[in-house]
Protein backbone atom coordinates (compact mmCIF):
# COMPACT_ATOMS: atom_id res chain seq x y z
CA UNK A 1 0.00 0.00 0.00
CA UNK A 2 1.64 3.16 -1.20
CA UNK A 3 0.40 6.54 -2.21
CA UNK A 4 0.34 6.46 -6.01
CA UNK A 5 2.17 9.09 -7.96
CA UNK A 6 2.32 10.72 -11.29
CA UNK A 7 2.93 14.36 -11.95
CA UNK A 8 0.09 16.42 -10.51
CA UNK A 9 -0.87 17.65 -13.96
CA UNK A 10 -3.96 19.65 -14.90
CA UNK A 11 -6.43 16.75 -14.66
CA UNK A 12 -5.49 16.07 -11.06
CA UNK A 13 -5.05 19.71 -10.05
CA UNK A 14 -7.92 20.96 -7.92
CA UNK A 15 -9.90 23.99 -8.99
CA UNK A 16 -11.83 26.30 -6.70
CA UNK A 17 -15.04 24.69 -7.97
CA UNK A 18 -13.70 21.18 -7.26
CA UNK A 19 -13.10 22.19 -3.65
CA UNK A 20 -16.42 23.92 -3.09
CA UNK A 21 -18.45 21.19 -4.79
CA UNK A 22 -16.41 18.40 -3.13
CA UNK A 23 -15.76 16.66 -6.43
CA UNK A 24 -14.03 13.31 -5.78
CA UNK A 25 -11.40 14.08 -8.40
CA UNK A 26 -8.98 11.40 -7.35
CA UNK A 27 -9.75 7.84 -6.27
CA UNK A 28 -7.30 5.29 -4.94
CA UNK A 29 -8.74 1.83 -5.13
CA UNK A 30 -7.42 -1.27 -3.42
CA UNK A 31 -8.92 -3.75 -5.90
CA UNK A 32 -7.57 -6.71 -3.94
CA UNK A 33 -5.68 -7.25 -0.71
CA UNK A 34 -3.86 -10.23 -2.23
CA UNK A 35 -0.16 -9.52 -2.63
CA UNK A 36 2.99 -11.37 -3.66
CA UNK A 37 5.28 -9.27 -1.45
CA UNK A 38 5.59 -9.23 2.35
CA UNK A 39 6.46 -5.64 3.11
CA UNK A 40 7.51 -4.90 6.66
CA UNK A 41 5.96 -1.43 6.47
CA UNK A 42 2.65 -2.39 4.83
CA UNK A 43 -0.16 -0.47 6.52
CA UNK A 44 -2.87 -2.71 5.11
CA UNK A 45 -1.04 -5.91 6.08
CA UNK A 46 -1.66 -7.12 2.53
CA UNK A 47 -1.09 -10.76 1.59
CA UNK A 48 -4.37 -12.68 1.35
CA UNK A 49 -7.43 -11.47 -0.48
CA UNK A 50 -10.31 -10.15 1.58
CA UNK A 51 -13.25 -12.42 2.30
CA UNK A 52 -15.75 -10.59 0.08
CA UNK A 53 -13.93 -8.65 -2.59
CA UNK A 54 -16.06 -6.89 -5.20
CA UNK A 55 -16.88 -8.91 -8.32
CA UNK A 56 -16.05 -7.67 -11.81
CA UNK A 57 -19.61 -6.44 -12.36
CA UNK A 58 -19.68 -4.71 -9.00
CA UNK A 59 -16.39 -2.99 -9.84
CA UNK A 60 -17.73 -1.76 -13.16
CA UNK A 61 -20.78 -0.37 -11.39
CA UNK A 62 -18.45 1.46 -8.98
CA UNK A 63 -16.60 2.96 -11.95
CA UNK A 64 -19.87 4.10 -13.50
CA UNK A 65 -20.92 5.81 -10.29
CA UNK A 66 -17.54 7.49 -9.84
CA UNK A 67 -17.68 8.82 -13.40
CA UNK A 68 -21.07 10.36 -12.60
CA UNK A 69 -19.57 12.07 -9.55
CA UNK A 70 -16.84 13.68 -11.67
CA UNK A 71 -13.85 11.48 -10.83
CA UNK A 72 -10.97 12.21 -13.18
CA UNK A 73 -8.35 9.68 -12.09
CA UNK A 74 -8.43 6.26 -10.50
CA UNK A 75 -5.26 4.63 -9.24
CA UNK A 76 -5.60 0.92 -8.73
CA UNK A 77 -3.46 -0.53 -5.98
CA UNK A 78 -3.39 -3.58 -3.76
CA UNK A 79 -2.25 -5.67 -2.32
CA UNK A 80 -1.08 -6.16 -5.84
CA UNK A 81 -3.70 -5.06 -8.35
CA UNK A 82 -2.57 -7.34 -11.16
CA UNK A 83 -3.18 -10.43 -9.02
CA UNK A 84 -6.86 -10.01 -9.85
CA UNK A 85 -7.70 -11.94 -13.01
CA UNK A 86 -9.92 -9.12 -14.26
CA UNK A 87 -7.40 -6.30 -13.76
CA UNK A 88 -7.22 -5.50 -17.47
CA UNK A 89 -11.01 -5.44 -17.69
CA UNK A 90 -11.09 -2.90 -14.88
CA UNK A 91 -8.45 -0.70 -16.53
CA UNK A 92 -10.42 -0.78 -19.77
CA UNK A 93 -13.68 0.04 -17.97
CA UNK A 94 -12.07 2.99 -16.20
CA UNK A 95 -10.80 4.39 -19.48
CA UNK A 96 -14.12 3.72 -21.23
CA UNK A 97 -15.78 5.93 -18.64
CA UNK A 98 -13.40 8.79 -19.47
CA UNK A 99 -11.33 8.45 -16.33
CA UNK A 100 -7.53 8.36 -16.30
CA UNK A 101 -6.17 5.09 -14.93
CA UNK A 102 -2.86 4.60 -13.20
CA UNK A 103 -1.55 1.68 -11.20
CA UNK A 104 0.75 1.29 -8.25
CA UNK A 105 2.78 -1.91 -8.04
CA UNK A 106 5.68 -3.63 -6.38
CA UNK A 107 6.46 -5.01 -9.83
CA UNK A 108 7.27 -8.52 -8.67
CA UNK A 109 6.18 -11.02 -11.37
CA UNK A 110 4.72 -8.25 -13.51
CA UNK A 111 5.97 -9.35 -16.92
CA UNK A 112 6.68 -7.19 -19.92
CA UNK A 113 3.73 -8.79 -21.71
CA UNK A 114 1.41 -7.91 -18.84
CA UNK A 115 2.63 -4.31 -18.86
CA UNK A 116 2.06 -4.13 -22.61
CA UNK A 117 -1.48 -5.48 -22.18
CA UNK A 118 -2.19 -2.92 -19.46
CA UNK A 119 -0.96 -0.09 -21.68
CA UNK A 120 -3.12 -1.41 -24.50
CA UNK A 121 -6.12 -1.51 -22.15
CA UNK A 122 -5.59 2.17 -21.39
CA UNK A 123 -3.23 2.36 -18.42
CA UNK A 124 -1.64 5.83 -18.50
CA UNK A 125 1.13 5.36 -16.01
CA UNK A 126 2.70 2.85 -13.69
CA UNK A 127 4.13 3.67 -10.29
CA UNK A 128 6.72 1.22 -9.02
CA UNK A 129 7.62 1.00 -5.35
CA UNK A 130 11.36 1.04 -4.66
CA UNK A 131 12.39 1.60 -1.07
CA UNK A 132 16.16 1.53 -1.20
CA UNK A 133 19.09 -0.12 -2.89
CA UNK A 134 18.97 -3.87 -3.42
CA UNK A 135 19.69 -5.20 0.07
CA UNK A 136 17.46 -2.72 1.87
CA UNK A 137 14.63 -2.93 -0.64
CA UNK A 138 14.57 -6.72 -0.62
CA UNK A 139 14.60 -6.74 3.16
CA UNK A 140 11.78 -4.20 3.46
CA UNK A 141 9.72 -5.86 0.74
CA UNK A 142 10.30 -9.30 2.22
CA UNK A 143 11.17 -11.05 -1.04
CA UNK A 144 14.70 -11.56 -2.42
CA UNK A 145 14.90 -10.43 -6.02
CA UNK A 146 12.10 -7.89 -5.73
CA UNK A 147 14.53 -5.00 -6.29
CA UNK A 148 15.78 -6.40 -9.60
CA UNK A 149 12.22 -7.07 -10.67
CA UNK A 150 11.18 -3.49 -9.90
CA UNK A 151 14.04 -2.12 -12.00
CA UNK A 152 13.20 -4.52 -14.80
CA UNK A 153 9.61 -3.23 -14.77
CA UNK A 154 10.88 0.35 -15.10
CA UNK A 155 12.98 -0.68 -18.06
CA UNK A 156 10.02 -2.48 -19.65
CA UNK A 157 7.88 0.63 -19.23
CA UNK A 158 10.53 2.69 -20.98
CA UNK A 159 10.74 0.31 -23.92
CA UNK A 160 6.94 0.16 -24.18
CA UNK A 161 6.51 3.94 -23.97
CA UNK A 162 4.53 3.84 -20.72
CA UNK A 163 5.17 6.63 -18.20
CA UNK A 164 6.97 5.18 -15.20
CA UNK A 165 7.23 6.72 -11.79
CA UNK A 166 8.88 5.48 -8.63
CA UNK A 167 7.47 5.68 -5.14
CA UNK A 168 9.84 5.50 -2.22
CA UNK A 169 8.93 5.06 1.40
CA UNK A 170 11.20 7.15 3.60
CA UNK A 171 12.28 4.95 6.46
CA UNK A 172 14.95 5.59 9.05
CA UNK A 173 17.45 3.53 7.08
CA UNK A 174 16.94 4.75 3.52
CA UNK A 175 18.17 8.33 3.84
CA UNK A 176 21.82 7.64 3.19
CA UNK A 177 20.91 5.57 0.12
CA UNK A 178 18.69 8.15 -1.54
CA UNK A 179 21.36 9.85 -3.71
CA UNK A 180 22.53 6.57 -5.19
CA UNK A 181 18.96 5.33 -5.50
CA UNK A 182 18.09 8.39 -7.53
CA UNK A 183 20.86 7.64 -9.99
CA UNK A 184 19.68 4.04 -10.27
CA UNK A 185 16.05 4.91 -11.02
CA UNK A 186 17.01 7.61 -13.53
CA UNK A 187 19.15 5.09 -15.36
CA UNK A 188 16.22 2.67 -15.30
CA UNK A 189 13.92 5.18 -16.96
CA UNK A 190 11.88 6.82 -14.19
CA UNK A 191 10.53 10.32 -14.93
CA UNK A 192 8.79 11.00 -11.61
CA UNK A 193 9.86 10.15 -8.11
CA UNK A 194 7.37 10.48 -5.31
CA UNK A 195 8.63 10.18 -1.77
CA UNK A 196 6.55 9.78 1.34
CA UNK A 197 7.26 9.06 4.96
CA UNK A 198 6.48 5.59 6.21
CA UNK A 199 3.46 5.88 8.49
CA UNK A 200 2.87 4.15 11.81
CA UNK A 201 0.24 1.70 10.65
CA UNK A 202 -0.09 -2.07 10.35
CA UNK A 203 3.23 -3.84 9.85
CA UNK A 204 5.12 -0.57 10.37
CA UNK A 205 3.89 -0.51 13.97
CA UNK A 206 5.22 -4.05 14.47
CA UNK A 207 8.57 -2.88 13.07
CA UNK A 208 8.59 0.63 14.49
CA UNK A 209 12.39 0.87 14.37
CA UNK A 210 11.99 1.70 10.66
CA UNK A 211 10.00 4.86 11.41
CA UNK A 212 11.73 8.17 11.03
CA UNK A 213 11.85 10.34 14.12
CA UNK A 214 10.21 13.74 13.54
CA UNK A 215 13.42 15.65 14.31
CA UNK A 216 15.18 13.78 11.49
CA UNK A 217 13.32 16.02 9.06
CA UNK A 218 16.13 18.52 9.64
CA UNK A 219 18.39 16.09 7.80
CA UNK A 220 15.87 14.70 5.33
CA UNK A 221 14.44 17.91 3.92
CA UNK A 222 17.71 19.55 2.81
CA UNK A 223 18.66 16.22 1.27
CA UNK A 224 15.39 16.03 -0.68
CA UNK A 225 15.87 19.62 -1.83
CA UNK A 226 19.31 18.78 -3.13
CA UNK A 227 17.98 15.69 -4.89
CA UNK A 228 15.14 17.74 -6.36
CA UNK A 229 17.66 20.11 -7.96
CA UNK A 230 19.89 17.32 -9.18
CA UNK A 231 16.97 15.30 -10.47
CA UNK A 232 15.67 18.18 -12.57
CA UNK A 233 19.02 18.41 -14.29
CA UNK A 234 18.52 14.80 -15.38
CA UNK A 235 14.82 15.04 -16.31
CA UNK A 236 13.51 13.45 -13.10
CA UNK A 237 10.87 15.31 -11.11
CA UNK A 238 10.93 14.63 -7.38
CA UNK A 239 7.44 15.08 -5.96
CA UNK A 240 6.43 15.21 -2.31
CA UNK A 241 3.72 12.88 -1.08
CA UNK A 242 0.91 14.26 1.04
CA UNK A 243 2.88 13.69 4.23
CA UNK A 244 6.01 15.58 3.14
CA UNK A 245 5.68 19.16 4.38
CA UNK A 246 4.64 21.66 5.45
CA UNK A 247 5.44 25.27 4.61
CA UNK A 248 9.11 24.77 5.39
CA UNK A 249 11.87 26.46 3.44
CA UNK A 250 11.74 23.93 0.61
CA UNK A 251 8.00 23.83 -0.02
CA UNK A 252 8.47 26.59 -2.56
CA UNK A 253 10.81 24.26 -4.40
CA UNK A 254 8.44 21.35 -4.92
CA UNK A 255 5.00 22.81 -4.33
CA UNK A 256 5.51 26.35 -5.59
CA UNK A 257 5.60 28.90 -6.87
CA UNK A 258 4.24 27.67 -10.17
CA UNK A 259 2.80 24.50 -8.64
CA UNK A 260 0.83 26.22 -5.88
CA UNK A 261 1.18 25.39 -2.21
CA UNK A 262 -0.04 22.84 0.26
CA UNK A 263 -3.79 23.32 0.58
CA UNK A 264 -4.51 20.76 3.26
CA UNK A 265 -5.36 17.09 3.20
CA UNK A 266 -7.88 16.32 0.41
CA UNK A 267 -9.26 13.16 2.07
CA UNK A 268 -13.05 13.14 1.92
CA UNK A 269 -13.23 16.43 0.05
CA UNK A 270 -11.55 15.65 -3.25
CA UNK A 271 -10.22 12.14 -2.67
CA UNK A 272 -11.81 8.77 -2.11
CA UNK A 273 -10.30 5.52 -0.96
CA UNK A 274 -11.92 2.19 -1.66
CA UNK A 275 -11.13 -1.13 -0.03
CA UNK A 276 -11.50 -4.32 -2.06
CA UNK A 277 -14.65 -5.37 -0.21
CA UNK A 278 -16.39 -2.12 -1.10
CA UNK A 279 -15.67 -0.13 2.05
CA UNK A 280 -15.50 3.56 1.22
CA UNK A 281 -13.14 5.99 2.98
CA UNK A 282 -11.89 9.52 2.44
CA UNK A 283 -8.41 8.17 1.77
CA UNK A 284 -7.34 4.57 1.10
CA UNK A 285 -4.87 4.53 3.97
CA UNK A 286 -7.03 5.81 6.80
CA UNK A 287 -7.88 3.47 9.65
CA UNK A 288 -10.99 1.55 8.61
CA UNK A 289 -12.36 1.47 12.13
CA UNK A 290 -12.50 5.26 12.47
CA UNK A 291 -12.96 6.31 8.84
CA UNK A 292 -14.95 3.54 7.15
CA UNK A 293 -17.95 5.27 5.56
CA UNK A 294 -20.21 2.41 4.60
CA UNK A 295 -20.10 -0.02 1.72
CA UNK A 296 -20.73 0.65 -1.95
CA UNK A 297 -22.54 -2.69 -2.18
CA UNK A 298 -25.36 -1.43 0.00
CA UNK A 299 -25.57 2.30 -0.71
CA UNK A 300 -24.96 4.43 -3.80
CA UNK A 301 -21.59 6.16 -3.65
CA UNK A 302 -23.24 9.56 -4.22
CA UNK A 303 -25.34 9.05 -1.10
CA UNK A 304 -22.39 7.97 1.04
CA UNK A 305 -20.27 10.80 -0.35
CA UNK A 306 -22.89 13.42 0.41
CA UNK A 307 -24.02 12.28 3.82
CA UNK A 308 -21.73 9.91 5.67
CA UNK A 309 -20.21 11.57 8.76
CA UNK A 310 -16.88 9.76 8.31
CA UNK A 311 -16.26 11.69 5.09
CA UNK A 312 -17.09 15.19 6.29
CA UNK A 313 -14.11 16.07 8.45
CA UNK A 314 -12.12 18.09 5.90
CA UNK A 315 -14.91 19.86 4.10
CA UNK A 316 -15.59 22.94 6.18
CA UNK A 317 -11.88 23.50 6.77
CA UNK A 318 -12.43 24.31 10.43
CA UNK A 319 -9.48 24.35 12.81
CA UNK A 320 -11.38 22.96 15.80
CA UNK A 321 -9.89 19.49 15.19
CA UNK A 322 -6.36 20.82 15.54
CA UNK A 323 -4.46 20.38 18.77
CA UNK A 324 -0.92 20.49 20.15
CA UNK A 325 1.53 22.51 18.09
CA UNK A 326 -0.79 22.46 15.06
CA UNK A 327 -3.57 24.07 17.05
CA UNK A 328 -1.69 27.35 17.40
CA UNK A 329 0.37 27.24 14.21
CA UNK A 330 0.40 30.25 11.89
CA UNK A 331 -0.50 27.95 8.99
CA UNK A 332 -3.32 26.15 10.81
CA UNK A 333 -6.10 27.39 8.54
CA UNK A 334 -4.27 26.36 5.38
CA UNK A 335 -2.52 23.18 6.48
CA UNK A 336 -4.93 21.81 9.06
CA UNK A 337 -2.38 19.39 10.41
CA UNK A 338 -1.23 18.03 7.07
CA UNK A 339 -1.79 14.39 6.20
CA UNK A 340 -4.72 13.03 8.20
CA UNK A 341 -3.44 9.48 7.84
CA UNK A 342 -0.02 10.28 9.30
CA UNK A 343 -1.28 12.15 12.35
CA UNK A 344 -4.28 9.96 13.08
CA UNK A 345 -2.35 6.68 12.78
CA UNK A 346 0.42 7.89 15.04
CA UNK A 347 -1.52 9.58 17.83
CA UNK A 348 -4.97 8.07 17.42
CA UNK A 349 -6.47 11.42 16.59
CA UNK A 350 -6.08 13.74 13.61
CA UNK A 351 -4.97 17.35 13.83
CA UNK A 352 -1.53 17.24 15.43
CA UNK A 353 1.28 16.18 13.13
CA UNK A 354 4.87 16.13 14.39
CA UNK A 355 6.16 15.24 10.91
CA UNK A 356 6.26 18.86 9.78
CA UNK A 357 9.37 20.72 8.75
CA UNK A 358 8.01 24.12 9.82
CA UNK A 359 7.22 22.68 13.24
CA UNK A 360 10.57 20.93 13.63
CA UNK A 361 12.46 24.12 12.75
CA UNK A 362 10.29 26.28 15.01
CA UNK A 363 10.87 23.93 17.94
CA UNK A 364 14.58 23.73 17.16
CA UNK A 365 14.86 27.50 17.52
CA UNK A 366 13.69 26.93 21.10
CA UNK A 367 16.20 24.11 21.58
CA UNK A 368 13.47 21.46 21.57
CA UNK A 369 12.84 18.36 19.47
CA UNK A 370 10.13 15.70 19.40
CA UNK A 371 10.54 11.95 19.48
CA UNK A 372 7.94 9.21 19.11
CA UNK A 373 7.79 6.16 21.37
CA UNK A 374 5.55 3.16 20.80
CA UNK A 375 3.33 2.40 23.78
CA UNK A 376 0.84 -0.01 22.24
CA UNK A 377 1.00 -2.52 19.37
CA UNK A 378 -1.47 -2.60 16.50
CA UNK A 379 -3.99 -5.44 16.15
CA UNK A 380 -3.38 -7.96 13.35
CA UNK A 381 -5.89 -6.35 11.01
CA UNK A 382 -5.62 -4.32 7.81
CA UNK A 383 -5.13 -0.60 8.44
CA UNK A 384 -4.80 -1.16 12.18
CA UNK A 385 -3.12 1.46 14.32
CA UNK A 386 -1.16 1.20 17.54
CA UNK A 387 -0.44 4.01 19.93
CA UNK A 388 2.57 6.27 20.15
CA UNK A 389 3.56 8.90 22.67
CA UNK A 390 5.10 12.16 21.62
CA UNK A 391 8.08 13.04 23.78
CA UNK A 392 9.37 16.60 23.84
CA UNK A 393 13.03 16.88 24.82
CA UNK A 394 15.96 19.25 24.75
CA UNK A 395 18.15 18.92 21.68
CA UNK A 396 21.35 17.22 22.91
CA UNK A 397 24.35 19.45 23.40
CA UNK A 398 26.56 19.56 20.33
CA UNK A 399 23.74 18.64 17.95
CA UNK A 400 23.62 21.25 15.19
CA UNK A 401 20.31 23.09 14.84
CA UNK A 402 19.81 23.52 11.16
CA UNK A 403 17.51 26.42 10.34
CA UNK A 404 17.85 26.89 6.64
CA UNK A 405 17.10 29.85 4.48
CA UNK A 406 14.27 29.43 1.98
CA UNK A 407 15.31 27.89 -1.24
CA UNK A 408 15.23 30.06 -4.34
Amino acid at each position, binding site marked *: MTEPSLDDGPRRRL*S*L*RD*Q*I*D*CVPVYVVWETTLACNLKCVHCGSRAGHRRAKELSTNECIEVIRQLAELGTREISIIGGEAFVRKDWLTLIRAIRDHGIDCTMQTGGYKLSREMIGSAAHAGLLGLGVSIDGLQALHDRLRGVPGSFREALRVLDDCRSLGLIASVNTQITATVMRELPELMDVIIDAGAKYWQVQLTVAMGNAVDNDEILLQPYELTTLMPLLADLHHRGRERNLLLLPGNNIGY*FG*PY*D*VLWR*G*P*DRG*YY*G*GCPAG*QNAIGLEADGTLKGCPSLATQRYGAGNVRN*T*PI*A*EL*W*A*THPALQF*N*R*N*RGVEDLWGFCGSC*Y*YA*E*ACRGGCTWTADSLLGRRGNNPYCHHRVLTLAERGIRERIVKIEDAPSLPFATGRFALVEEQIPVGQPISVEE*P*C*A
Partner: protein
Amino acid sequence: MTGLPAPPPQGRAAPVLVLCRQCLHYVFEGTVHCPHCGRDSREISARYRDGGYLAIETMQRIDRAVERRQG
Protein backbone atom coordinates in the same frame (compact mmCIF):
# COMPACT_ATOMS: atom_id res chain seq x y z
CA MET B 1 -31.14 3.29 -0.21
CA THR B 2 -33.11 6.19 1.21
CA GLY B 3 -36.08 7.86 -0.51
CA LEU B 4 -34.91 11.30 -1.58
CA PRO B 5 -31.55 12.02 -3.20
CA ALA B 6 -29.08 13.58 -0.81
CA PRO B 7 -28.24 17.24 -1.37
CA PRO B 8 -24.89 17.77 -3.11
CA PRO B 9 -21.97 18.08 -0.72
CA GLN B 10 -20.54 21.51 -0.06
CA GLY B 11 -17.02 22.34 1.03
CA ARG B 12 -14.80 25.34 1.51
CA ALA B 13 -11.75 26.19 -0.56
CA ALA B 14 -8.25 26.46 0.86
CA PRO B 15 -7.22 30.01 1.77
CA VAL B 16 -4.90 31.77 -0.64
CA LEU B 17 -1.25 31.93 0.27
CA VAL B 18 1.47 33.86 -1.47
CA LEU B 19 5.19 34.16 -0.99
CA CYS B 20 6.62 36.94 1.13
CA ARG B 21 8.45 39.00 -1.46
CA GLN B 22 11.30 39.44 1.00
CA CYS B 23 12.02 36.06 2.58
CA LEU B 24 10.10 33.66 0.26
CA HIS B 25 8.17 32.04 3.07
CA TYR B 26 4.47 31.48 2.51
CA VAL B 27 2.11 34.05 4.04
CA PHE B 28 -1.64 34.51 3.78
CA GLU B 29 -2.77 36.77 0.95
CA GLY B 30 -3.03 40.37 2.13
CA THR B 31 -0.36 40.02 4.81
CA VAL B 32 1.62 43.22 5.25
CA HIS B 33 4.16 42.40 7.95
CA CYS B 34 5.71 39.01 7.34
CA PRO B 35 5.53 36.88 10.51
CA HIS B 36 8.74 35.13 9.47
CA CYS B 37 11.14 37.94 8.59
CA GLY B 38 9.29 40.95 10.06
CA ARG B 39 9.63 42.95 6.86
CA ASP B 40 6.99 44.32 4.50
CA SER B 41 5.97 41.25 2.54
CA ARG B 42 4.72 43.43 -0.34
CA GLU B 43 8.06 45.07 -1.05
CA ILE B 44 9.74 43.33 -3.94
CA SER B 45 13.25 42.18 -3.15
CA ALA B 46 15.90 41.65 -5.79
CA ARG B 47 15.90 37.98 -4.94
CA TYR B 48 12.17 37.79 -5.62
CA ARG B 49 12.34 39.70 -8.88
CA ASP B 50 15.49 38.08 -10.25
CA GLY B 51 14.38 34.59 -9.25
CA GLY B 52 11.41 34.83 -11.60
CA TYR B 53 8.88 34.81 -8.74
CA LEU B 54 7.28 38.10 -9.75
CA ALA B 55 6.39 36.81 -13.20
CA ILE B 56 5.01 33.61 -11.76
CA GLU B 57 2.99 35.52 -9.17
CA THR B 58 1.43 37.61 -11.91
CA MET B 59 0.38 34.50 -13.81
CA GLN B 60 -1.07 32.99 -10.63
CA ARG B 61 -3.09 36.14 -9.96
CA ILE B 62 -4.53 35.97 -13.46
CA ASP B 63 -5.38 32.27 -13.01
CA ARG B 64 -7.13 32.95 -9.70
CA ALA B 65 -9.08 35.87 -11.13
CA VAL B 66 -10.28 33.77 -14.07
CA GLU B 67 -11.24 30.93 -11.78
CA ARG B 68 -13.17 33.21 -9.42
CA ARG B 69 -15.00 34.71 -12.37
CA GLN B 70 -15.91 31.26 -13.67
CA GLY B 71 -16.72 29.97 -10.18
